């Protein structure tokens, strides 16, 4: 079964691009557009018995930020590895990423960078949800 990734970004074009790039190398990707939708989707998948192997999220999104959504997911006890994408990597974001044990990627990001980060995250933390 292909590893399941949940991808959150408010730009539909970027989502589609990244999802396609990841699917072509063998992952299954579920797309959402907001922090709130991310939380809902992760819970829904867990409830359906799906194993979410990785969560990739943009930091700045309208409404709830990706960091807050990730914090809420962790607080609910879901330990899936995290990758944050950010255009503005300030100290605050770095600190939160470290706290949550997330990998931080800077925008603009190249597909190669993304794919190797995904691999690293999934391989290095093969743990259950």
């Amino acid at each position, binding site marked *: 079964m292909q590893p399941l990734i949940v991808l959150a*970004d408010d*730009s539909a*074009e970027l989502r589609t*691009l990244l999802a396609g790039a990841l699917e072509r190398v063998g992952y299954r990707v579920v797309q959402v557009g907001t922090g709130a939708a991310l939380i809902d989707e992760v819970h829904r998948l867990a409830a359906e018995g799906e194993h979410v192997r990785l969560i990739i999220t943009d930091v700045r999104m309208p409404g709830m930020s990706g960091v807050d959504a990730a914090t809420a997911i962790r607080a609910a006890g879901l330990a899936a590895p995290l990758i944050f994408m*950010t*255009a*503005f990597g300030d100290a605050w974001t770095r600190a939160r990423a470290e706290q949550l044990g997330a990998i931080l990627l800077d*925008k603009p*990001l190249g597909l190669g960078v993304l794919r190797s980060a995904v691999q690293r995250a999934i391989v290095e933390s093969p743990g259950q949800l």
Partner: protein
Amino acid sequence: MKLVAKYTLALGLSLGVALFAIAYVRVGYLRGNLVADMRRDQLVIGNVLREGVANVWRDVPDPERATRETRELIERANGVVGTSYFAWEAAATAAGADAADAQAIEGGAFVSRLPVRAGAARVGTLVIRESLGDVEDVIRTDVATSGIAIALIVVFGAVASAVLGAWLVGRPVARLVEHARRIGRRELSATAVVRTRDELGALAAELGAASGALAEALARRDAETEARLAAVDQLRHSERLSTVGKLAAGIAHELGTPLSIVAGHAQMIAGGEVVGDDAIASARAIDLEATRMGKIVRQLLDFARRKGPEGTSCDAVEVARRCLRLLGVMAERGGVRCAIEADGPADEPAAARAHIDEDALQQVLTNLAVNAIQAMSGGGALRIRVTREAATAPSAPGAPGAAAVPVPCVRVDVADTGPGIPADVLPHIFEPFFTTKPTGDGTGLGLAVVHGIVGDHGGWIGVESGADGTTFSIYLREEPP
């Protein structure tokens, strides 16, 4: 010197009245005394003479001879005593049978009638007459002297009081008045203008102290105002810096995603991951993102290099009309009805000259109108209202009360009937890059630019929003016609 004049006049009058009353009473007494003296003298002399006459009548039995000797006696008396005049009235001619001494004033003279007896019978009356003319002379002299004395006293007293008053009171008070006037003209000095050791000196010292204290307080206030102005300046400066920081963050964020998309598609094409139609689709996506980035850069540049306040003016009504004309098609397509409200008759609204560059106002109104039309996705009404009113600028915290006075303004309202802006979002809408729209659907710079343009021209903007719509109110200084 009005004080001294009043005081001198009062003193002179009261002094004059008092002295006059005293003199009047005194003259009365004087006359009484003089007449009493006359009465006494005449009695004394009269009695002496009466004795002599009585003796004559006692010694000389013959009435004719007695009468002759009496007249001789009286003649001698007249010669000796110069002031009175003695006369003898024989018994037969004596008026009435009155046997008592009588004294009275008769026609300007004091007259004594002394009956003389020899034995039991009255032989005649001794009449003494003294003119009161001398008395009147004395009285007149006394009155004249008193009058002159009174006049001299009053005049001297008045002059002395006037001089002393001017010296002790008038001049010091005039100096105090001048000091007070100088305080009113903000020429503050702590020196006392009167140094005497009396109440006026004390007043001068207090006035000087108060003046000095006022000068200090004013200096302190000026210093504080300067400090506050400097602080506000600092604040504005650092706000501008944080705006630059926000700009940088915004640029990074806004361009990050489109660049990622461009990079991704380009990498896929270059790596052969997409070919044929997929490659063409990727290329189109790159083109789209490039255009989007161009728009973002242009908006950022507009925001960053806003032209300084132009100082020109325009007719807000005319600009509003033009704006709605330009957006007419867009509004129609969105089902939005547009209307302009202004003072004056509908076909010839009165002009409202606002202190703002024409193009700048156009940009502002267009921005707000487009937002409004986009907010009314199911149709609605867009209304631009132009009025003139006096309004007070909202002052920044800590700014010295410079905004307290209402100034004549041109007010432009841009109102829509859309769903409104949520209360938690409302305080942030003018922040650069604040947006509730998903990425790519606007940079969130529009309202920040609007806010900046209005502020650059010395105006301000406010917003009210509820479930039945949003109204942006722009206040611009009114240009005098």
